[in-house]
């Protein structure tokens, strides 16, 4: 890292730096879980059921005798995936729709308004549960279910922001230059309108992990034997009194990752606000 980039790093908000550090570490762990995990996360050890934390198993073992630490580490892969994939489609699709709705306005906007109303009127979790039940459980279907609902929130944010940007002179300047609508929307307005959506995205990723764990609790999320924090916590629920380590450590992981995302989001918001 060059001197300059170090000094620039120092000027970034503290929240941003911490958040980014947590997430970069998380992504590394998620990418190479085997490099960090001491055991095979699926290996069962019937003589070592529910062993408390020890040198051999720093986070103890679960009711199958599986190493909790290794499972928490391997869960990074799935949970970071959930964070990304459950939000990526809503982000992209919502952004595109929102940009168009915000730019065109008028009737499109009224119709969109009703769609938003309908979606936010419907209890989110219930809708997701219903959709997952239609499609069947599993991560992909969970992504689809979250996506079907989630894009609306991005679209709302983007539409509102595009409407603001649209009124600024540079949008008119583009039109006065004879540029096409598509160019004005996607080349000019969108890059300027997208920041609140990106900030929301960060929060949303943390929420996606949480939602994933709620669905895991209901058996609708990640499927076993894959380790996923929510599923692990749900698994450990019956052992809160006797083997707290099964649920507490994955709980830490969720909190830490959530913290990473929201710090990053806060920091990002601060940077972007500062630039304005």
């Amino acid at each position: 890292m060059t001197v300059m980039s170090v000094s620039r790093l120092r000027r970034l908000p503290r929240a941003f730096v911490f958040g980014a550090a947590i997430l970069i570490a998380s992504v590394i762990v998620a990418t190479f879980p085997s490099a960090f995990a001491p055991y095979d996360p699926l290996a069962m050890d019937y003589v070592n059921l529910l062993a408390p934390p020890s040198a051999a198993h720093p986070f103890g073992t679960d009711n199958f005798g599986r190493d909790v630490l290794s499972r928490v580490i391997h869960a990074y892969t799935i949970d970071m995936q959930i964070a990304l994939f459950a939000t990526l489609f809503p982000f992209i699709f919502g952004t595109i729709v929102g940009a168009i709705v915000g730019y065109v306005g008028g009737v499109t906007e009224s119709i969109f308004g009703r769609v938003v109303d309908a979606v936010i009127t419907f209890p989110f979790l219930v809708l997701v549960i219903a959709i997952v039940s239609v499609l069947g459980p599993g991560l992909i279907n969970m992504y689809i279910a979250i996506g079907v609902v989630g894009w609306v929130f991005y679209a709302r944010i983007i539409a509102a922001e595009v409407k603001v940007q649209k009124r600024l002179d540079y949008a008119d300047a583009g039109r006065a230059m004879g540029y096409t609508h598509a160019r004005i929307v996607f080349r000019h307005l969108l890059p300027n309108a997208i920041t609140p959506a990106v900030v929301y995205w960060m929060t949303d990723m943390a929420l996606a992990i949480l939602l994933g764990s709620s669905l895991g609790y209901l058996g609708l999320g990640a499927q076993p034997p894959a380790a996923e924090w929510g599923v692990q916590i749900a698994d450990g629920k019956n052992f809160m009194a006797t083997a707290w380590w099964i649920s507490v450590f994955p709980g830490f992981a969720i909190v830490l990752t959530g913290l990473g995302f929201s710090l990053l989001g806060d920091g990002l918001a601060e940077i972007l606000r500062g630039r304005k």
Partner: protein
Amino acid sequence: QERGGVMTYGRYADSMFLDPVLNDANVDIWILSNMYDTLLLPTDDGQSVQAGLATDWNVSDDGLTVTLTMRDGIMFSDGTPITTEDVIWSLDRARNPDNGIWNFLLAAVSEVTAPDDKTIEIKLAQPDPAILPALSVFNAAIMPKAAFEAMPGETDLEKATAFAEKPVGSGPFVFDSWERGSTLKLVKNEHYWADGADGQKLPYLDGVTFEVIPDDATRILRVQSGELDGAELIPFARVKELQDDPNINMELFPSTRVADIIINVRPELDGEPNPLSDVKVRQAMNYAANKDAIIQVVTFGVGTPTSSFMSSTTPLHTGDGPVFPYDLEKAKQLMSESGYPDGFTASILTLAGNQDELGIATALQQMWSQIGITLEIQQVDNATRTEQYRNGTFDMRAGAWTNDIADPNQITSYFAYSPTIDALHSGWKSEEVDKLFEESQSELDTDKRAEQYARIQEVFNQEGPTVLLYETPYPVALQDNVKGFNQIPLGNNIFRETYLEKE
């Protein structure tokens, strides 16, 4: 025994419909007998019958007539006497093929009559060795005809719906109030006929309040905090912990509950040849399944390996010790002899959110991977699973069974006898078993019937469409002062002799 007091009992789910005939599920079945009395009652061990509203019973030698003598002075909880008319009407309603799903239990009955006002005569179209237990099943409960028919509505269903809002029966308890999803209150039936062993009138309790607490952990917490006197369906994981709790009496009531894996054995699935149709494969899977480990992991030692597809508490059960003791070598051997020496991939349906089934599947996933079978776990909700099950489009599913009647015929007709539901919708069929079962259905000679059942179990256990796992008791946590509560092997919660000991 001490009298009085109200017992609060925590259940995992609320009842849905308190009609003995039209109800559908265990949440209703298991408590109905507290409100509705039957002519005969199951014994505490669930193996045979004892006197109920009828004091004497007799099956004619040809097995075609059952004669019962009604108890004297019995009345419904509203004080109206129970007449033979009520009995005839109730049994006719229960056996009407248009009513509910339990009428098959009384399918052999052709006519119910009352020669005099103390006697009930039941005529059978063909002999039925299970007719006495059938009269002790919830759907044969005796209901007040007049009160029922006075209900608003045109159809039986409409009347039943109105009636079940505030049901009247002759069981030890009477319906008092019901907040759906939360509490169901029963109070003592002042008109109940039975006396306890101490000669006092039953029931001892003033009432029973059922509280619905779907979350296992919360249910246990409520017992531990003393807010509940008892709670059902304690997760096995917590049994040990509660056994160690000095204030709590952790009961494990013997049950007819068996857990297994149901395998679709149709030769083709989705147009592909189905490896599971190969009996060697199934045997290999049975051998490779380490039941002790599963019992340890899933039931935390509470369960015992099944020795037959039916539980050891079922009449005419045979066998002892696991049918397929864990033997990986043998399993590998069998696999290599099968049509699929290199293994295959198959999926298993488990109920979303059900930790037991998930545990079984997770353990099997690992165990079977050693004989080359890749198991994909699919957690689905009940309706989805039932649909796939019914359509026969599943590979495997986790299954559990509890008898409703103190006779092996119910479980066998579902498990082994193909005309009922295709042997657990598995597509399995054995001419021999079908024939034996049909014969046993009207076989009055107990020994002969036992032989028939022994053979059915032998065939099914060896070749059947299941991986046999374990049987488990009913885990019920009770406060130390709760005495005389019983959950019989059929699942019924019996409060009539329950009392709360005062210090």
